[in-house]
C-alpha cells in the first residue's frame, strides 16, 4: 500500500479550470479555405475555477445536468485529462506530477460500461486485474466473490459481455473498479440507464463499500433522489462552476418552496440557478468565447 501524503483529505481541487476548443466550420467549406467570420473556434469551459475537498470515507456527490462538467471533473481526477490550471490532489498526490501514485489509489466506473464485448466478464476482469499487478489465481478468487456479492451468477461470468444486460454490464464495471481495491472510487453516473432493481443493488453496494472498506467515493449523478440517499455531502455544478455544496439537509435548508412543502434538491437547483434540472438535460455546454 502506497503511503498517503494526506491521511484526511481524499480529494482536493483548487481553482481547477478546463476549457475545450471546438472547431466550427460552415457546411461545404474545405479545411484549407480561410475561415469566415462566423467560423472561428469556440471555447467550451467545462470546469470554471472549481474548488472542493472530499474527506476520507465520505460519499461525496457531484450533482448537475448533462454537460455541466461532471464527467470532465472525474476525468481530470482520473488522470485522463490535464487541467489547464489549478491543482488536483488525491490523498496529497498531485494528479499531474505524481500520476503513477494517483493511479494506484483510484479507479473509476463510467456511465458507459466499456469492455471488449466479445470477451467474457471473467476475461475482461482478469485483464484489468493483471494491469494492477494481481496474479491470475488471486484475481479469479476476488472476481468470483465480488460478482457473487453483486448478484451475478457464475454462468453470466463466462458469457461474452455483449450478451449481458445493461445492468449486468454495469455490475461488471463496478467489479472491475473494486477489484483493485482503490481507496478513492470515482463513480460517474453508475446507475444511469439501470432498471430500478439493479439501481438499488448498485446503490447498496456503494454504501457497503464505504462502510466495510477503506473507500472514499466521489459519485456524479443527475438523480437527485440518489444524491440525497447516498451522499454525505453534495456539490451542485452548473456550467462548470460549483454553485453550492454541503450536506443534502443543509442545502435544502437554504430554500423554502412557495407552496410550503418540504424542499428537495430539485428546489435547491431551481433556487440557485433559476432553472429546473430536467430542463437543461440536453442543453449545450456554456460557450465562453
Amino acid at each position: 500500500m502506497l503511503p498517503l501524503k494526506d491521511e484526511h483529505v481524499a480529494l482536493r481541487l483548487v481553482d481547477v479550470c478546463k476549457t475545450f476548443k471546438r472547431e466550427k466550420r460552415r457546411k461545404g467549406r474545405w479545411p484549407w479555405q480561410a475561415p469566415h467570420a462566423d467560423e472561428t473556434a469556440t471555447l467550451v469551459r467545462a470546469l470554471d475555477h472549481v474548488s472542493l475537498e472530499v474527506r476520507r470515507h465520505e460519499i461525496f456527490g457531484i450533482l448537475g445536468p448533462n454537460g455541466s462538467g461532471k464527467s470532465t471533473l472525474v476525468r481530470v481526477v482520473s488522470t485522463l485529462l490535464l487541467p489547464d490550471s489549478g491543482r488536483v490532489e488525491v490523498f496529497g498526490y498531485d494528479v499531474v506530477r505524481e500520476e503513477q501514485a494517483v493511479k494506484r489509489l483510484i479507479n473509476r466506473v463510467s456511465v458507459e460500461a466499456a469492455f471488449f464485448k466479445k470477451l467474457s466478464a471473467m476475461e475482461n476482469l482478469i485483464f484489468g486485474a493483471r494491469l494492477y499487478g494481481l496474479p491470475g489465481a488471486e484475481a479469479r478468487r476476488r472476481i468470483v466473490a465480488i460478482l457473487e456479492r453483486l448478484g451475478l451468477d457464475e454462468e453470466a461470468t463466462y458469457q461474452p459481455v455483449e450478451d449481458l444486460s445493461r445492468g449486468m454490464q454495469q455490475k461488471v464495471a463496478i467489479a472491475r473498479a473494486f477489484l483493485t481495491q482503490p481507496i478513492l472510487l470515482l463513480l460517474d453516473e453508475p446507475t444511469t440507464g439501470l432498471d430500478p432493481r439493479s439501481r438499488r443493488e448498485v446503490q447498496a453496494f456503494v454504501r457497503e463499500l464505504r462502510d466495510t472498506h477503506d473507500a472514499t467515493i466521489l459519485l456524479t449523478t443527475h438523480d437527485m433522489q440518489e444524491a440525497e440517499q447516498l451522499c454525505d455531502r453534495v456539490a451542485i455544478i452548473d456550467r462548470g462552476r460549483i454553485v453550492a455544496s454541503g450536506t443534502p439537509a443543509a442545502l435544502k435548508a437554504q430554500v423554502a418552496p412557495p407552496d410550503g412543502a418540504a424542499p428537495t434538491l430539485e428546489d435547491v437547483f431551481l433556487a440557485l440557478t433559476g432553472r429546473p434540472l430536467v430542463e437543461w438535460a440536453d442543453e449545450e455546454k456554456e460557450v465562453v468565447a
Partner: protein
Amino acid sequence: MSTLIREARASYAFVERNINLIKRYWGWEIVWLSYSVANSLAVTYIGAGMGYISGQTVDTQFLIMYLLIGTLVWHFLSVVFDVVSETVAWERWEGTIEYTLMAPISRFTHLVGTTLFSLIYAFFHTAVILAAVVLFFRLDLSGANLGGAALVLLAGSVSFIGLGIVAAILPLLFPERGAQMTHVVQAVLLLVSGIYYPVEVLPDWLQLVSRLSPATYVLRGMRAAILDGAPLVELRATALPLLVLGVVLVPLGVFVFQQAERFAKRTGRLSRDG
C-alpha cells in the same frame, strides 16, 4: 523485484487478452491466414512466370526464393504494424483505452505487452506462409541457414516494434481513421526497403532513405542466410545496424507515444467520441 513482477504481469495481460480475442474471432483468423498464404503465393508466382514474361532463361528457383523472402518480411512487418495500431484503435472503439491508460503501469510496459503479442502472432503467421509456399513450389531449403534467418528477423523485430509504437499514435489521436493512416508508414517502407527488388535500382536519394529502414537490413540478412546459406558470423554485419536502429527506435517510439498521450489528455481526445 516486486515492481518487475507487477510490470511483467501487466505486459502478459495484453498478450493473454489478445489471444482471447483471437479465440473469439477464429473464423476471421482463418480467412486472414488463407488470404495471406494466397497473397504470398501470388507474389512468388511472379518469379515462376518471369521466364515466360521475358522469353529468356532465368533461375526460377532463385527468383521464387528472392520474392518469397520479400513477401515473408513484408507480411511480418505488416502484421506487427497492424496488430499494434489495431489494438489501440480497437481499445478506442470499445472505450477501454481510458481504463488501460488509467492503470498504474509504465507506458513502456503497456506497449511492450502489445508488441510482444504482435511478434508472437507475426512469427506464427510467417512460419505458416513459409511452410505453405515451400510445399507448394517444392523448394529446396537444405542449404539455407534458417536459424540465422530467424535470428535476423528477431533482431529486426526490435526496430519494427519501435516503428509500430510510433505508428500507434495515429489511432490514439484519430479515432476514426487512425489505424488506416498507419498504412502510410508501411507504404514508405515497402517502397524503400527492397522488399521485391534490390534497393540498388532505386534513385540515389531513395537509396539514402532505404538505409534508415530496418527492413532493408532484415531483407539483406535473410537473403544472405536463405539464398547463400551465410553463417552467423557473416550475418553480424546486418544484425549490427538492426540492433542500433532498435536501440534508437524503441525509446523514441515510447517517447513519441507519451507526447501523443499527453496531447490527447490536454485536448480531450481519449474519450470514445474523440
